[in-house]
C-alpha cells in the first residue's frame, strides 16, 4: 500500500473503529483522533524528508512522487468510448507542503475538540471523515477523484457547523454549504467538458487525468476546450469561460471579495476546531486548486485574467483589513483578517512570477498555521467565559500573562513581523507582484504598492485589539466571576500552540525549509503558465 493511501484512509479506519466502539468509551474517541493525526504528521514528516527537491512534477507525470495509479472505474459506454477513471494519487512541490500542514492542523483541531461535550461519536466520525477528504484533495491527480474528495469535505463540515455550532449555526451551515456548492456544481460541467475534450494518448480513451489535461497536445481537434479550435460559448472563449467557472469555484473557498460573506458567519458560528480547519485548511484548498487546476490546465486564460485576479487580490487585502478594523467580535475580526491575508495569495499567484507564487505558497502555509493559532486562542477565551466581544475585556495581560504571550506571538506574526513566516510570504508576494510588470507584464506596479497598505492596516487592527483587550487596567464584563474563570494556558493548550508558533518562526527564519522543496515545481509552473 502506498504512503499516500495510508495517509488518506487512516482516518476512515479510525471512523470504523469509533463506530463499533460502544458509547461508553466515548471519552477515548479524541485520543483515537489525536493518534491518527499524530501518525499522519509523522508520515508527512517522513515524506518531507524523503522528498526529491529536483523533481518538478506539475505537468510531467513521471516527475510526481509517491505515485499510486490504479484503474478504478472502467465502463464501456459504446459509441462514446470507454469511461476511464483512475485512482490516481501523487505529490509534487505544490502539494507536499499541504500534507504536513493538514496533519498539523488536524492535530491542533483535535486538541481544540476537547471542548466538545455532546454526541462525541458522531462528532469524531465526521471529523475524521473530513480529515480523509482534505488529505485526498491534496493528493488526487485524477480530476474525478479530486472532485469526490472536494465535495466530500462539504458534508462533514455542514454537520459539524450545523450541529455543534453557536446560536445561529443552522443559518451559517446552510449558507456555507450553498455558497460552496454553487461554485462546485458548475465545476462539474467543466470537468465533463474536459473529459470529452481530452484523450489519453496511451489508451485512446477519454480521461480525467489532470496531468494529461495540461498538455494541449492531448486535446481532440475541434473539441470544446481545445486551445487551437478556439470554441466559444455565449460569445466568450470556451476555455476562458471554463477558467472563470473553475476560478470562481475555488475563489469562493479562498475566499475573495465579494464572494466572502459565508466566511465570517461560518467562522463565528462554527465550534473552535471547525474554525481552525476552515481557516487552516479549507481556504488553502481554494488556493491550491487555483494553482493546480485553473492555472495549470488553462494557462492561456490565466494570463488573460491575471490583471483581474490581481485586482481581486488587492481588493480582498484592503477590504478585508478595513472590515477587520470595524469588528467588535474577536472571532469575526480574525475571520476578516483571513480575507485580507488570503488576498496576498491571490496577488502572488496572479503575478505568475517565481517570487510571487513562492510567496503565495508560503503565505498559505503560514496563514494556515497562524490562523489556526488565532482561532485556537479565541476559542480559549470563549470556552472559559463564553464571550468574545472585544469590549468585554481589558487588561488581560496582567491576568493571563502566558496567554497574552501567545496572543502577542500570533498577532505580531500575523501582522508580518519579520522573523515570522507571514513577513517572508507577504514580502515575496509583493515582490512578485511588483516585478511582474518587467518579467511578464501581467500586473501593474501600483497593485503591489497598494497592497502594501494592507500590511499597515493589519498592524492597526491587531495592535488596536491588543491595546483594548490586553493592556490597561483589568476590567471585565463578568467581574470577579470571570477573573476566576480566566485561568492561564494549560498544558493541552500549550501542546497545540507551541508547534504552530514554532512552525511560523522556523519558516520565517529559514524559508528555505519550504522554498527548497518547491522551487523546482514553482519554476515548472511558471514555465507552464508563461511559456
Amino acid at each position: 500500500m502506498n504512503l499516500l493511501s495510508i495517509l488518506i484512509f487512516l482516518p476512515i479506519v479510525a471512523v470504523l473503529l469509533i463506530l463499533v466502539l460502544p458509547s461508553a468509551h466515548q471519552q477515548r474517541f479524541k485520543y483515537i483522533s489525536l493518534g491518527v493525526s499524530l501518525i499522519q504528521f509523522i508520515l508527512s514528516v517522513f515524506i518531507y524528508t524523503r522528498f526529491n527537491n529536483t523533481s518538478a512534477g506539475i505537468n510531467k507525470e513521471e516527475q510526481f512522487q509517491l505515485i499510486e495509479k490504479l484503474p478504478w472505474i472502467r465502463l464501456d459506454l459504446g459509441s462514446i468510448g470507454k469511461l476511464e477513471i483512475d485512482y490516481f494519487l501523487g505529490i509534487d512541490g505544490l502539494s507536499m507542503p499541504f500534507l504536513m500542514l493538514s496533519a498539523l492542523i488536524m492535530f491542533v483541531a483535535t486538541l481544540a475538540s476537547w471542548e466538545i461535550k455532546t454526541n462525541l461519536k458522531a462528532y469524531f466520525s465526521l471529523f475524521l471523515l473530513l480529515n480523509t477528504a482534505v488529505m485526498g484533495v491534496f493528493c488526487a491527480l485524477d480530476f474525478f477523484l479530486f472532485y469526490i474528495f472536494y465535495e466530500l469535505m462539504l458534508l462533514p463540515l455542514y454537520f459539524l457547523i450545523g450541529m455543534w455550532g453557536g446560536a445561529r449555526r443552522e443559518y451559517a451551515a446552510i449558507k456555507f454549504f450553498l455558497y460552496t456548492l454553487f461554485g462546485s456544481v458548475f465545476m462539474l460541467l467543466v470537468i465533463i467538458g474536459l473529459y470529452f475534450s481530452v484523450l489519453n494518448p496511451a489508451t485512446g480513451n477519454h480521461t480525467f487525468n489532470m496531468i494529461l489535461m495540461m498538455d494541449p497536445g492531448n486535446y481532440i481537434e475541434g473539441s470544446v476546450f481545445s486551445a487551437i479550435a478556439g470554441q466559444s460559448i455565449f460569445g466568450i472563449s470556451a476555455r476562458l469561460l471554463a477558467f472563470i467557472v473553475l476560478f470562481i469555484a475555488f475563489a469562493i473557498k479562498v475566499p475573495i471579495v465579494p464572494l466572502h460573506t459565508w466566511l465570517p458567519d461560518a467562522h463565528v458560528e462554527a465550534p473552535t476546531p471547525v474554525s481552525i480547519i476552515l481557516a487552516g485548511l479549507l481556504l488553502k484548498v481554494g488556493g491550491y486548486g487555483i494553482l493546480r487546476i485553473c492555472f495549470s490546465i488553462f494557462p492561456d486564460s490565466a494570463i488573460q485574467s491575471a490583471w483581474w485576479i490581481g485586482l481581486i487580490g488587492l481588493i480582498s487585502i484592503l477590504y478585508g483589513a478595513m472590515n477587520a478594523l470595524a469588528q467588535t467580535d474577536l472571532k469575526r475580526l480574525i475571520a476578516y483578517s483571513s480575507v485580507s491575508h488570503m488576498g496576498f495569495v491571490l496577488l502572488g499567484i496572479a503575478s505568475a512570477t517565481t517570487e510571487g507564487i513562492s510567496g503565495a505558497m508560503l503565505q498559505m502555509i503560514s496563514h494556515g498555521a497562524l490562523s489556526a493559532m488565532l482561532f485556537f486562542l479565541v476559542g480559549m477565551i470563549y470556552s472559559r467565559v463564553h464571550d468574545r466581544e472585544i469590549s468585554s475585556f481589558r487588561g488581560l495581560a496582567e491576568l493571563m500573562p502566558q496567554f497574552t504571550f501567545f496572543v502577542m506571538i500570533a498577532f505580531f506574526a500575523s501582522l508580518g513581523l519579520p522573523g515570522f513566516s507571514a513577513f517572508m510570504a507577504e514580502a515575496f508576494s509583493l515582490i512578485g507582484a511588483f516585478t511582474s510588470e518587467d518579467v511578464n507584464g501581467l500586473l501593474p506596479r501600483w497593485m503591489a504598492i497598494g497592497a502594501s497598505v494592507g500590511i499597515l492596516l493589519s498592524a492597526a487592527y491587531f495592535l488596536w485589539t491588543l491595546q483594548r483587550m490586553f493592556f490597561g487596567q483589568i476590567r471585565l464584563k463578568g467581574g470577579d466571576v470571570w477573573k476566576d474563570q480566566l485561568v492561564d494556558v494549560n498544558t493541552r493548550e500549550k501542546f497545540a500552540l507551541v508547534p504552530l508558533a514554532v512552525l511560523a518562526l522556523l519558516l520565517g527564519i529559514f524559508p528555505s525549509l519550504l522554498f527548497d522543496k518547491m522551487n523546482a515545481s514553482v519554476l515548472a509552473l511558471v514555465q507552464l503558465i508563461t511559456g
Partner: protein
Amino acid sequence: MEGLNFLENRGLIALLAAILPLFSFVFILSSKRGGGANFALSTISLSFLLSMYLFSHIWNAEPEHKQFSWFMIGKVQFYAGILLNNLSILMMVLVSGISVLVHIYSREYMKNDPNIHRYWAYLGLFCFSMLGLVISDSLLLIYLFWELVGFSSYLLIGFWFSKHAASQAAKKAFIMNRIGDLGFLTGILIIYTQFQTLDLARLFGDGGLISTSSIENGLWISGSQQIPAIWLSIAGLAFFLGAMAKSAQFPLHTWLPDAMEGPTSVSSLIHAATMVAAGVFLIARIYPVFDPLVLDIMVWVGAFTAFMAATIALTQNDIKRILAYSTISQLGFMVMALGIGAYSESIFHLATHAFFKCLLFLAAGSVIHQLHHYCEKYKHNFDHQDIRLMGGLRKRMPFAFFGMCLASAALVGLPLTSGFLSKDSILIRTFEWTATREGVFVILPWLMVLTSWLTAFYIFRLVFKVFFGESREIKADKLGQISDSPVQMKYVLLILSFFCTFIVFAFNPASFESSWLWKGFEVSMIREISVYHWLVPLILNLGSFLLIFITYRIYVLDNGPQSMKGTWLYRISNQEWFFNEIYNFMFIRSVERLSLLSYRFDRTVIDGLVISMATLTKTISSIIDWFDRRIIDGLVNASGSLSRYIGRFFKNFQSGRLQHYLTTMLLVVLSFFILSYLI
C-alpha cells in the same frame, strides 16, 4: 590555535556580539522571575568588548564582508551576511557602549519594578536587533532588523502597559513606524526589480550596480534591465520615508514625544541615542541610491523638522518632552546634513549627539527618579516630570546638575564640547553648500542658525527651571530630603560627561577637521570656503551666549520681557503645532469611519445581495410550490375528482334494485320514442 582562528574570524565575532543579547532575551524570558540584571549586563558587556575588538581591527582598515546563502527562490539566491565597515563598526561600538551604560544605570533606576525581568529581556531583544541592523549586509536583513527594532521599542514603550497612555503610545509608535516601513519595503521592491539582488555590497560597493546603472532617455538602465527613471527617485523617496519614520522627521515625528511614556532609561537608549539614529544610519548606508531630487527633499525635510521641533521645545513643560523634541530637532540637523552631502559631518554629529543626548536623558532620569522617591516617601503627589514644579535642585543633586549642564552645552554647541565640533561642522557645510545654490536655498543656513539659537534657549530654560531658583512644589525645609541618585547612576553620568567633551573626538577643540571620527569617512564634495570656518562658529556662539544670558534673566532673575503666554505663537508651540489633532482628524477618524462604512457595506450590500438572492430563490420556489400544488397537482387532482364523480355517477346505476333498473329502462325507452317522434 582554535582561539586564534576565532579571533581571526571577524564575521563570527560580529555575529556573536549581536546574538549575545538575543541569548539574554530568550534566557531571561524563559527563566521567569528572578531579575536577570546581571545576566543582561554581562552579555551586553561582552558584546561591547567584542565590538571594541572589531573596532580596533576594522576602523580605517579593510571592510569585512562575510555571507552565506540563506534561501533560494526560483533561480535567485538570497544571501545573509555581515558587512563591517567604518560606518557599521562605529555604530556597533556606539550602540553596545551606550547600552552597557544604560544597563548599569537601569539597575538602580528600575529597581523594585515587579516585572523587572521583562525589562531586561526586552533590552536584550533591542540590543540584538540594533546590532543586527548595523552589521547586516542585505536590504532584506536590514528590513528584518528594522522592524524588530520597532517591535522591541513597542515592547519597551508599553512596558508599563497597565497605564493607558503607555499602551497608546506604544501602538502609535509602531503604526507610525509601519508607515515608514511601507516606504522601505517599496524601496526594496524597486531595487529588487531593477537589480535582482538586495545585497548591499553588490548594490552600493565600489563599482556596484547602482553606480554602474545609468539614466538615459528617461530610462533607468542597469545591464539589460530598464525601468522608467522616475522609479529611481521613487526608490530614494521610499527609503527616505522609512528613515523619516524611524528618525522622527516631519511629518512622521509625532510618535517620539509620546514614546516618552516608557521608562526614562529606555528613552535615553532607544529614543535618543540609538534607535532613532537608525534612520540616519540607513540613509548613510544606502547613500548612493538618492538622486539630487531626493537629496533636496531631504534637505528641506531635515531643516524644517529641526526648526519646528526646536520651536515646540521652547514651551513644553514636561522635562522628557523637551528632550524628545530636542532629539527630533538634532535628527533634523543630521538628515539635512546628509541632504547637502555633508556625509561625515552628519555621522559625526550622530555620534556626539548619542552621548550628550543620552546624558541629558539620564540626568533628567536622575531628577525624576529622586523626585519619585520623594513623592512616595512623603506621600506628596505631584507630576514629577513637570519642570514648572521643580527648581533649586542644583545644590541637592550636583552630579545631575553637572551632567545636565555639560550635555546642554554640547547640545548648544558651546566651545570645548563635542557638540561644538560636530554641530558647527554641519552649519559650516550648510553655508558652503548654499553658496553654490540659488533662490530659496539662501535662507537655509540662517534657518539652521536660528534653530541653534532656539536650542540654546529651550535647553537652558530647562536647566534654569530645574536646578536654579527656588523650589516651587517642594517646601524649602523638605528640599534637604532630596539627594543625588545612587552611586551606579552617578558614575554613568560621569562617564557620559567625559564623552561630551572635545577630547574624545579631536585634540584640537576648535577644528572638526582634526577629528579622527570625521576623517574616518569620505570627505564631502562641498567646496570649502575658509571664511566660514571661523565666522560661523563665532556668530553661532555669540548668539548662543547672548540667549543663555537672556534665559538666565527670564527664568532665574525673573526679570525678562512680558510673558508670551496666550499669544498665538505660544499656543502653536505649546500645542506642538497641532499635529496630533490634525492627524487625529484627518487620518484616524477617517479610517475609523471608512472601516465602519465598509463593514456596513459588507453587511447590507454584499451580504444583503446574497441574502436577497436566497430570499428570491425561496420566493420563486414558493411560487413554484403554489403552481405545483394548485395548478399541476390541481389538474391531476381534478382529473382524479372528475373520474370519481363520473364513477360515482355511474355507480348509482348499479344499485342492484330491479325497480330502479325497470324505471331507468322505461325512462330510456320513453325518451327515445319522444325524441324520435319530435325529430
